[in-house]
C-alpha cells in the first residue's frame, strides 16, 4: 500500500494502491484512507480485483462519498472518490 499525492480529476489526490488485494482489503484500506481525509478531498484507488468494480461503488454509496470516475484498463481499475460529509 502506498499513499502519495498525485493529480486527479478535480485537483490533488491521495493515491492508494490495492493491486493484488482481494475483498475485503480494497474496501477496508479505502475506508481507512477516506477516514483520514477532509470532506471534498480526493482519493484515487487502484485495484486489480474484479469484484472491486461493484465493491468500490457500493462503498461510496453506503458511506455517502462521491464516485467521481472509474477508469477501466487491462485488468486494472482506477477509482477517483471525493470524500463526502461523513466520517
Amino acid at each position, binding site marked *: 500500500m502506498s499513499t502519495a499525492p498525485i493529480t486527479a480529476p478535480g485537483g490533488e489526490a491521495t493515491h492508494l494502491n490495492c493491486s493484488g488485494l482481494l475483498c*475485503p482489503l480494497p474496501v*477496508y484500506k479505502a475506508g481507512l484512507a477516506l477516514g483520514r481525509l477532509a470532506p471534498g478531498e480526493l482519493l484515487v484507488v487502484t485495484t486489480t480485483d474484479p469484484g472491486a468494480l461493484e465493491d468500490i461503488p457500493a462503498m461510496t454509496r453506503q458511506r455517502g462519498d462521491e464516485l467521481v470516475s472509474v477508469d477501466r484498463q487491462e485488468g486494472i481499475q482506477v477509482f477517483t472518490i471525493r470524500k463526502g460529509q*461523513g*466520517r
Partner: protein
Amino acid sequence: MTQPTIDRDPATTARRKRLAIVASKGTLDQAYPPMILASTAVSLGWEAGIYFTFYGLDILHSERFDKLKVASLANPAGPIQLPNALGAIPGATAAATRVMKRWMADARMPTIPEFIEMTQELGVRFFACATTMGVMGVTEEDLIPGADIAGAAAFLDYAADADVSLFI
C-alpha cells in the same frame, strides 16, 4: 469487561446502519466470513457486532484463535479432496489446514488473529456467548481482551436495531 449496551456515535446525529452476525463455527474456513463481513461493514460506515457462540467461541479463545483448523472429513469442498475414509487418517486435518493457510497467504489475506485486530481497531463489537462459556468451561481469562460476555437477550437487544443480521 462492560455490559453490552446499544451504542450510538454521539458525533453524528444520523443513525448508522448496523450489521449483527452470529458466528457459530470454529473452523478456520468458517471464521473468515464473519471477519470479512464485519470489517467491510465498518468500512462502509456501519456499526458491526459479532456474537460468538458454540464452536464459534474458539475464535475468541486466546489459546485457540490462532490454531483453528480446516476439517478434512465430511468436507467435500475442502482444500484437499479426500474420500471420508481417508479424511479421518492422522494428519489429514493438519494437511487441509496447511493448504488453506497457504491459499490465504498467497492471496495476501489477513490471518484470523490479524482480522480480529483489524476489526477491534475499527470498533466491531465482540460478544462472547455466556452459555457456551458455561457449558464448555471457558472462563473470562481464556478470552482475548475486548469481548463482552453476553447472553441471547443482550445480543437480540443489539440485533433488534440491526439492518442486516446473519447466522454463520
